[in-house]
């Protein structure tokens, strides 16, 4: 492992516990609520960080929400292994099948619409209607990408009229394992908007959730786990972007990286590290993206390779 300016081995500063200043959510009258442990999602299961670390996640007013897992380098590497293992099956599934699986995610998300609106609201401090609009957009985004699964090859493929007795065609194929640094500000819609376009075409993903607002993405993994998305197709890490992203950027078995959620200075370092095995690097042109807007094809195309096959024609 080459030593870069990133010094990814440094232990990140862990937010000191606030000693009771951040108050937990109030229990309903007459009942002690059963709270959720927010864990990682790797290879279809929900481990804690192997490091045993966690960090405090607060709401927009500083109130305690939960302790999220603080993922380590080892967790990141485990997630890459899981993603690699899942790649053959997922990329080999029919496009129709992948489309149905993504649509299934939308179905289950719809059923938990109220829960996600509350989580997004608590995390980002949005108003009730705004939070609902964000969840609705996230659901619709799954539907939009679900429909692309069996159309992208027709839109981006080609039969090429070569000057010779050959049938020559080009098809898009998934790049492989994609590391995604999800946007920090849009905890659910942003996360969905960067993960769905990578997996719909057959890639598998290791996604680093929003550092500030990780909880909606963690809850989304419960939806993914029950939507027939095969284990390992989406792996979700929570923790410090500056600590984990460099390990993903320099990992030799990661084929592409989406730097959307990386601050500009870190993104430069990550892009340099990514050159070591010529990862495909996706860097959005504009920093403040309006995630509600229709996304276009950029993110799907960023993780597609074009394969061209020559076959002789003759008797």
């Amino acid at each position, binding site marked *: 492992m080459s030593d870069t300016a990133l010094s990814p081995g440094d232990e990140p500063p862990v937010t000191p516990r606030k000693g009771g200043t951040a108050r937990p959510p109030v229990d309903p009258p007459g009942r002690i609520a059963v709270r959720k442990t927010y864990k990682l999602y790797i290879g279809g299961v929900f481990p804690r960080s192997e490091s045993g670390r966690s960090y405090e996640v607060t709401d927009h007013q500083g109130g305690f929400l939960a302790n999220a897992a603080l993922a380590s380098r080892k967790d990141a590497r485990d997630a890459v292994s899981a993603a690699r293992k899942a790649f053959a099956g997922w990329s080999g599934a029919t496009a129709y099948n992948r489309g149905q699986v993504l649509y299934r995610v939308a179905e289950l998300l719809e059923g938990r619409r109220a829960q996600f609106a509350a989580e997004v609201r608590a995390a980002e401090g949005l108003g009730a209607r705004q939070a609902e609009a964000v969840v609705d957009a996230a659901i619709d985004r799954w539907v939009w990408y679900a429909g692309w699964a069996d159309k992208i090859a027709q839109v981006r493929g*080609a039969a*090429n009229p070569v000057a010779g007795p*050959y049938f020559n065609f080009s098809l898009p194929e998934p790049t492989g394992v994609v590391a995604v640094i999800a946007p920090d500000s849009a905890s659910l819609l942003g996360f969905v908007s960067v993960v769905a376009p990578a997996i719909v075409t057959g890639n598998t993903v290791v996604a680093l959730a929003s550092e500030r607002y990780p909880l909606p993405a963690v809850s989304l993994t419960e939806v993914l786990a029950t939507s027939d998305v095969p284990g390992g197709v989406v792996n979700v890490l929570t923790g410090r972007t500056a600590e984990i992203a460099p390990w993903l950027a320099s990992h030799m078995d990661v084929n592409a990286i989406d730097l959307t959620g990386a601050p500009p200075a870190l993104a430069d370092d990550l892009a*340099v590290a990514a*050159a070591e*095995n*010529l990862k495909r690097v996706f860097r959005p042109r504009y920093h403040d993206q309006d995630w509600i807007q229709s996304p276009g094809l950029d993110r799907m195309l960023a993780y597609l390779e074009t*394969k061209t096959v*020559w076959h002789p024609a003759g008797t």
Partner: protein
Amino acid sequence: MPKFDYAPAPESRAIVSLRESYGLFIGGEFVSTIDGRAFKTISPATEEVLAEVTEAGPADVDRAVAAARQAYELTWSGLPPRERGKYLFRIARIVQERARELAVLESLNNGKPIRESRDVDIPLVAAHLFYHAGWADKLEYAGYGPDPRPLGVAGQVIPWNFPLLMLAWKIAPALACGNTVVLKPAETTPLTALTFAEICQQADLPPGVVNIVTGAGETGRALVEHPGVDKVAFTGSTEVGKQIARACATGPHKKVTLELGGKAANIVFEDAPIDQAVEGIVNGIFFNQGHVCCAGSRLLVQESVYPEVLASLQRRLGTLRLGDPLDKNTDVGAINSAAQLAKIRELSDAGEAEGAQRWSPPCELPVKGFWFPPTVFTGVSQAHRIAREEIFGPVLSVLTFRTPAEAVEKANNTPYGLSAGVWTDKGSRILWMASRLRAGVVWANTFNKFDPTSPFGGYKESGYGREGGRHGLEAYLDV
């Protein structure tokens, strides 16, 4: 049976008239260097000096980029797309008119057989220019939105293995999409690029739309790292490709496409037509002396037909004719440079040292120039350097497999992913294999076929971006 020897059939050099020395082609004319120096370019077959050319310095590159910028802003971007296309059509036609001269010059400076430069390189150059000319006024139908815009100034660095063809792959789409270019040909093969500059003059291409700066690695570095360049296109080694990716990772945004090395598997199944497959193996690795990034340098033979394929291959290699690149009978020409010859020797020696068996047909090498005999290694394991590293020479490593799954596993066991070949009579197996091989181009029952309509480029560490076809336009559009 009586044995009839070939009579020499040399192509005349008279058609080529070279200047004693060449400046840089900047702003539509040949100019002297500001801060560079002169160096000699030779024929690798004889080590004869052909001409003196210029190694451009940073100030020269600066001047070329400025000329390209000016041409982009003042003339080229304002030209109706149809007119842009007509310039490219015109250039394609002049290439056809001067095809023989270009073929002879290419063989002289590169060392490749005239049969190849005449029948493959130069016809494909014209085809690439002609194909892309037609795109210039049709870009809104290419699938990149209603009004795809050019990027600006393209800095392009090309290799020595197909000097003029790589130039055409770079310049044709760049110009068709409305960019202007500064192109650096390879250090050892600048002459057809400089002749192309004369063709641009003959075509009355507006000054500065195409600029040619000759030189070596430092000139190339100055070009790709120049802040005035909006687009970097590079074909060459994976090592340099990574340097470029690193250099362009920071600073102002540059669109980068890289076409890099390969270690292609050429996979022969037991049901393949063996004679055809052997021709394909020979074409796969000995075409252009193996100086081909997509060369089929790893032969994977199904165990059941291994003895038959190997015997047939060795018999066929005994008939290859190595020698004068300008002789029309020549199959295998000269290695392009002393440095490349040293690299081929080093890796071949490593193959022997690591325990593989080396074999070459009886083959007399000319005394002068750079030569290496067609070479086959058997008993090669996947761990051997000759099975992992790109040799870029006429050296074939032979491995075996039993099942299709094992063939896929071995073929994909490389950081590269440029091309692959499959030989079998079974159509379903071709498609099964093609979908599992992690490579940008898969040739089924053929190898080393190229066409301007056919997207070319790699997976994994063979680079990113495509050249050719509708897909190749993306590299030169702001999309």
